[in-house]
């Protein structure tokens, strides 16, 4: 262990500074904990900033008939009943308070004519439910949380990557990482650790996700002994940009459809009439993504392999007011004026429903002192997430994880750091510099993205998934032999070499789980098993490291209490 290693002590260490991490940090601070927040980017740049359409909460400002019960039912139906029902309940019940809180911290949502927070329609939501700020809701949320946290006094470690969780006799003890700027090492000793590192989209070639979404937190937790759950459920957002190639995958918000956008194929047919005549464009994301994909595959796609999404029947000023970033995005990047003509869109890898298996009320993982919230945690969304339920998830479960982490810290003495673990972590991080020859990290990343895109996409087969597993094995071997050039000073090639480990772990987890689920449910579609299998709807696929290998087992979903069953049985 380096003698003069930089070390910081905290009650609660939060890894990841998106919505969930910041909300967790704020809550832990409110409980009197000393809180450190570590993030790979600058503060305020996390992936939450890209969220566009809104956050779902049954505020009943627009549709008075809405209630938490309807929100709960929509979420469970959208998730094909694989959701953790307790999470779905807490989420629906608490989301409105979390929104009001944001407003009291300075967030400014769009308003109704009587001055309340305005809510818009979104796929799978029975009522107009999404609180929003035009199409930049995530920016409003992250800025509000960031300012609140800074005011309350958390320490922020920006551009700092955690590569290993440290444990002390099976309990969490802290984390090891490096400063991206200088390459220097840093160690955190913490009584509680909250993982809020977001998703895994960067393992696919076409994705709406930023470079940060490499599954770090899931991999960290898995390596430390925690369990991953529902990893087969990867959401492909139906509408990403498809042309020009440079912008492929960039998100086109669901708010376009929420505001009345219509999908058509190259023959001008409104094809959603075939796939979901009731909900049409506002069907759930899994259905719309599959529909567009099918239209393209059957030869009815646009010139560049997508579908047309048209909002130009609405007044130009309205479109610019409600969808300003979409207007600019298409104008500047694709030379398309969306007030005059249609956009070309197609599915893009967007969100991970699965993640670290946690307790519903606290976000506690199977490792004492290790918590997770947001996209990094599994449970709330089941087999498919409804649009708008992610931002509310971050707030509801970020707060709960922060609260539980602070409570845990109160009862826990400062743990001991194990120098053997730290030595190993140092060696692992430096290994790519020490090889005279070796693999190029960028080439491995490209090959992984290609593999996941072609073999573990929207439609899956046994054969493709087995081929993907074999490819991932080869990539793991290559990744163990990476060589990087240059120094430790802000070196992206080196940074990528560290992230590849996590990308490979989560890719393997997705593929193994997808192989095991021999049915089609929500976002997981098997060509060889196209039907829903009721018996498989009663269990989650869970992964853990056993004797060095990723091992899959099933855990039965606990019986739902009668009062919640009653809600599901009700119509509207």
């Amino acid at each position, binding site marked *: 262990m380096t003698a003069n290693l930089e070390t910081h002590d905290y009650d609660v260490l939060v890894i990841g500074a998106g919505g969930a991490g910041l909300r967790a940090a704020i809550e832990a601070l409110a409980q009197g904990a000393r809180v450190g927040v570590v993030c790979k980017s600058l503060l305020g740049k996390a992936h939450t900033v890209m969220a566009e359409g809104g956050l779902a909460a049954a505020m009943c400002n627009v549709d008075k008939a809405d209630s938490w019960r309807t929100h709960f039912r929509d979420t469970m139906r959208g998730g094909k009943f694989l959701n953790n029902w307790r999470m779905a309940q807490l989420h629906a019940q608490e989301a409105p308070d979390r929104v009001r809180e944001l407003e009291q911290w300075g967030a400014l949502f769009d308003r109704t004519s009587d001055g309340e927070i305005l809510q818009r329609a979104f796929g799978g939501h029975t009522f107009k439910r999404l609180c929003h700020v035009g199409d930049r809701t995530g920016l409003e949320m992250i800025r509000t949380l960031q300012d609140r946290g800074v005011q309350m006094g958390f320490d922020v470690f920006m551009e700092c990557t955690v590569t290993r969780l440290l444990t002390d006799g099976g309990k969490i003890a802290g984390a090891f990482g490096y400063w991206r700027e200088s390459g220097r090492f840093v160690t955190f000793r913490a009584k509680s650790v909250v993982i809020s590192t977001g998703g895994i989209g960067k393992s696919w070639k076409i994705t709406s996700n930023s470079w940060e979404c490499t599954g770090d937190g899931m991999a960290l937790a898995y390596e430390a002994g925690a369990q991953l759950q529902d990893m087969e459920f990867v959401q492909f957002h139906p509408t990403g940009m498809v042309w020009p*190639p440079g912008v492929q995958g960039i998100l086109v918000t669901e708010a376009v459809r929420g505001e009345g956008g219509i999908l058509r194929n190259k023959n001008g047919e409104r094809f959603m009439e075939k796939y979901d005549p009731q909900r049409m464009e506002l069907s759930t994301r899994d259905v719309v993504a599959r529909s567009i994909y099918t239209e393209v595959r059957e030869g009815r796609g646009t010139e560049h392999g997508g579908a047309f999404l048209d909002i130009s029947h609405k007044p130009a000023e309205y479109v610019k007011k409600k969808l300003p970033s979409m207007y600019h995005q298409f104008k500047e990047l694709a030379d398309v004026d969306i007030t005059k003509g249609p956009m070309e869109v197609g599915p893009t890898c967007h969100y991970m429903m699965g993640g670290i298996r946690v307790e519903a009320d606290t976000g506690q993982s199977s490792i004492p002192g290790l918590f997770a919230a947001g996209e990094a945690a599994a449970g709330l969304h089941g087999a498919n997430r409804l649009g708008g339920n992610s931002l509310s998830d971050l707030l509801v479960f970020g707060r709960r994880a922060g609260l539980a982490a602070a409570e845990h810290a109160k009862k826990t003495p400062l743990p001991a750091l194990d120098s053997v673990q730290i030595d190993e972590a140092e060696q692992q991080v430096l290994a790519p510099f020490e090889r005279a020859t070796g693999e190029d990290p960028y080439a491995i990343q490209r090959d992984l993205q290609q593999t996941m895109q072609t073999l573990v996409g929207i439609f899956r087969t046994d054969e493709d998934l087995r081929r993907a597993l074999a490819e991932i094995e080869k990539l793991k071997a290559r990744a163990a032999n990476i060589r990087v050039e240059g120094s430790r000073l802000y070196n992206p090639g080196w940074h990528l070499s560290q992230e590849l480990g996590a990308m490979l772990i989560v890719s393997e987890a997705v593929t193994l789980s997808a192989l095991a689920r021999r049915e089609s449910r929500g976002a997981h579609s098997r060509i060889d098993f196209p039907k829903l299998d009721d018996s498989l709807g009663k269990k989650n696929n869970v992964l853990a490291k056993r004797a060095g290998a990723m091992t899959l087992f099933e855990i039965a979903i606990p019986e739902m209490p009668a009062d919640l069953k009653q809600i599901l049985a009700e119509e509207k």
Partner: protein
Amino acid sequence: MAEAVLRVFRGDANGGATADYRVPLVPGMVVLDAVHSVQAHQAPDLAVRWNCKAGKCGSCSAEVNGRPRLMCKTRMDSLPQGEPVTIYPMKSFPLIKDLVTDVSWNYEVNRKITPFTPRPGADWKMDQKDVDRVQEFRKCIECFLCQNVCHVLREHGKEAQFGGPRFFVRVAGLEMHPLDGANRIPQLKDQLGIGLCNITKCCTEVCPEEIHITDNAIIPLKERVVDQFYDPLTMLVRKIRGAT
């Protein structure tokens, strides 16, 4: 296949020079794509800061052909063909490496600003037209391009006395929030030095979010400073009362 030459600054705090890279052009390619192509095939340690590549996070600010802008929103086909595309880091911030600068000073300034302070008894109802005005300021993605071009910082290095356009925008968003009850005008005058701005509008010109920084944020704030501190009648009253 068509190619472009990127002339990219390579170096760190000890100095550096440009290096040329030939990059194959792809339709719709933006400058950040071209930089990524260099990273992936020619210079794996080329440092660049970015996140979303969709104009939403404000991380990839640089000076492209001498103009401060976001690399993710600058299309290669919008730049003169047949000439090298020069890419330098933002000049006003200390260099870390290649295209990455140390922008931590901005976070220090931000911490000085009195946070949102709701007026007691607020009923949390607001008119959209009051909210519109503030939402313009809250569009800011903190790319710091406005800070980069502001001559008070770029030429005169007044970081110690001056907050810069980004933070005048933030203060404007707080001061004009329909339910905020705090007074940041003394802070604006003393700690953030708004008087040093002589409204040359350089900041407004480079804002990728098209915020009217000078007209809608800085000028109204300057007027509030004048009203509170330099209004002759108020000054007279103060003198009589013996207040400072």
